[in-house]
Every structure is written in structure tokens, then in C-alpha cells.
């Protein structure tokens, strides 16, 4: 535990009859909407780009009809630079259908990754929907646990798109090194020979890059873990939406 401790003391330690860890409340706005949904969109964008489905995805998103309680996104997906909580919540409502439409009927080798990606997104969306419930029964909490479990089991399909800056720097360094070595062999090679070397090298480069990204990437960031206390929290303290930071933000805006 000692490596989790930062500087300074826990503010709540000196207060009586208080357990500091029970003061922590899960927060839908930052954990789900601005946290995991944002990561999820990055993963989806990455995988759509990889399989060349980005265009249909944007087309479907643009063609969404208005519906009571649902705000149609005004801009195209890539034009939005900063996502707000409200927009993310809207996106969460429609993303599953849009994604299913955009992926369409995949054939051959694409079928399995697409199915897995859809399953992962579906698990997260379902978890989010259930977390919004105002009252729970043991059954609904069991559903939530099941969705969370499924999300954790299936998210490895998106692992290659969860690239940290550090991994990216390592990949760039590796590529530079390969190019440097290749340029050393240039002396005395004929033009056609040189092209063959280049093509050969490019395949190797890509292979190494994918290997490295798979080896280095991980989902060990804190928002991923913060979903875990949700179910226990409902059992102990009641529904999640009443603890969302959104309410407080709106409330104190008026008082300042």
C-alpha cells in the first residue's frame, strides 16, 4: 500500500466516527461519461480506421433522427474537439446502434473482431444504463456485475488502440533505429535491389510495431478500476445518480 501514498495526510483522518474510504462516492460524470466513454470512443475510432469503416460510421451518426430526450449531435464526430458530459451521455444513448449499423454485415476474417468489439461496447453501455437506475433490486445489481465482468473480459479486442505516449515514443524510437540501419546498407545497392530491401523492411517494421504495442499496452489506468466499487456502493448507500458531481456543479454555480 505504501507505494500508493502521496504527499500530505488524509484530510479525514482526524475526524471522529468516519471511515475515509466510505466518504468516496462513485461519480458518473467523470468516471463514465468523461472517462471511459472517451476512452471507448478512441478505441472505436481506432478500430474503425483500421478496418476502413470510419466513413459509414460518420454517415450514420449524421443521419440520426431527432427523438424526445435525445439531442441530435450538431457536428460531425471528428469536428468536435472537446466533449461535454451532456454530449457524451447523448452519444452513449446512440453509439451502440450507430456502431452496429456502421459495421454492417462483415464477412470472413472481420466477423469475429467486430462481434467482440460490439460485445464490449454493449457491456459498457448496458452497465452505464443500469447505473442510472434510481432504485435497485439484487437482480439489477447482479446484472450490473455481469456486464462489468463481460466488459473486462472482452476489452482485449481494443488493447492495440490503448496506446500511451510512452509506448508511442518507444515505437517511434524503434522505427528510427530500423531506418538508420537500413540507410547504412544503401551503399552499393542497385535501385531495384534497394526497393526490395525497403519493402521487406516495411513488413518487418509493421510486425515489430504491432508486437511492441501488444506487449506494452495495458488497461491499468485508474478509471478502469473505478467502475468496480459501483455495485458494492449501491448495496451500501443506494443509487448512483444522486451522488453525481453534475448536481453539485449546477448547485454551486448559483451560489458563487
Amino acid at each position, binding site marked *: 500500500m505504501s507505494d500508493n501514498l502521496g504527499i500530505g495526510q488524509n484530510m*479525514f483522518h482526524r475526524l471522529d466516527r468516519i471511515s475515509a474510504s466510505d466518504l468516496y462516492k462513485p461519480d458518473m460524470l467523470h468516471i463514465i461519461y468523461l472517462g471511459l466513454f472517451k476512452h471507448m470512443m478512441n478505441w472505436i475510432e481506432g478500430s474503425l480506421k483500421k478496418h476502413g469503416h470510419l466513413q459509414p460510421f460518420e454517415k450514420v451518426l449524421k443521419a440520426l433522427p431527432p427523438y424526445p430526450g435525445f439531442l441530435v449531435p450538431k457536428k460531425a464526430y471528428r469536428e468536435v474537439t472537446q466533449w461535454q458530459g451532456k454530449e457524451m451521455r447523448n452519444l452513449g444513448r446512440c453509439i451502440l446502434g450507430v456502431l452496429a449499423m456502421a459495421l454492417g454485415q462483415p464477412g470472413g476474417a472481420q466477423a469475429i473482431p467486430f462481434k467482440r468489439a460490439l460485445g464490449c461496447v454493449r457491456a459498457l453501455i448496458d452497465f452505464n444504463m443500469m447505473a442510472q437506475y434510481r432504485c435497485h433490486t439484487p437482480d439489477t445489481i447482479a446484472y450490473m456485475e455481469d456486464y462489468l465482468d463481460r466488459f473486462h473480459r472482452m476489452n482485449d479486442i481494443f488493447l492495440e488502440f490503448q496506446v500511451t505516449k510512452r509506448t508511442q515514443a518507444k515505437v517511434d524510437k524503434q522505427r528510427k533505429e530500423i531506418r538508420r540501419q537500413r540507410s547504412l546498407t544503401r551503399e552499393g545497392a542497385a535501385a531495384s535491389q534497394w526497393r526490395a530491401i525497403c519493402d521487406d523492411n516495411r513488413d518487418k517494421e509493421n510486425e515489430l510495431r504491432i508486437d511492441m504495442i501488444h506487449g506494452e499496452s495495458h488497461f491499468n489506468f485508474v478509471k478502469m*478500476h473505478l467502475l468496480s466499487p459501483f455495485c458494492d456502493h449501491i448495496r451500501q448507500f443506494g443509487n448512483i445518480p444522486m451522488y453525481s458531481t453534475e448536481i453539485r456543479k449546477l448547485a454551486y454555480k448559483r451560489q458563487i
Partner: protein
Amino acid sequence: MAVLLLALLPIPPKFSKFFKADHCQRKINADTLQDVFELIFAPLPEVAHAAITIDCADGKVRQCFPILSAWIADHIENVALHGSKTNACSKCEVPTHELGTNAKNY
């Protein structure tokens, strides 16, 4: 839900390339926050031990021992309050390399 504004917390200047995050400055920031919270929490220990009477919604007057029961904050604020590291959970003791798994037994 009734919301009452108690205090606005002091926000230290951000660490940047020109304003390096040295240990001393971090310590000062943490201590300042600590002092402010001591000021805010000052009435709490007394009322938690000695009962006070509070009007209840059903018209009766009840004897109460109010305590702090919830703190709604985002992750970064929680980190500052609990004095933990950025990649640590504020509720449990999960190690960094297991954040991505669905581990529940911490």
C-alpha cells in the same frame, strides 16, 4: 437535496515547465489544504460527540449526532484530499498493475 456553499478552497498555481514541482512546494500546498480543512471541520468533532437537537421533517425535534457521511468529488480532488497518488484508488488498496482487471477483493 439542499446545497450550501461552505468555502472555496485555495488552488495553488499549476506546475509547469517553468514552475517545477519540487518537494517543498508540494508539501506547502498539502499543508495549506490541511489547515483550511481543519478550519472547515472545526465544529464537527464537538457535535459528533455532544448531541444537538434538530428539527425533523415529520415535525418532531430529534437528538442528532451529525457526522460527515459523503464527499462528492472527482478523482483528482479525491487524490488531493486523501493524500494518495494519482493512480491509486481512493476507496481500496488495489495495486497499480491490477487496475485494469476486475479485482474486487481489496
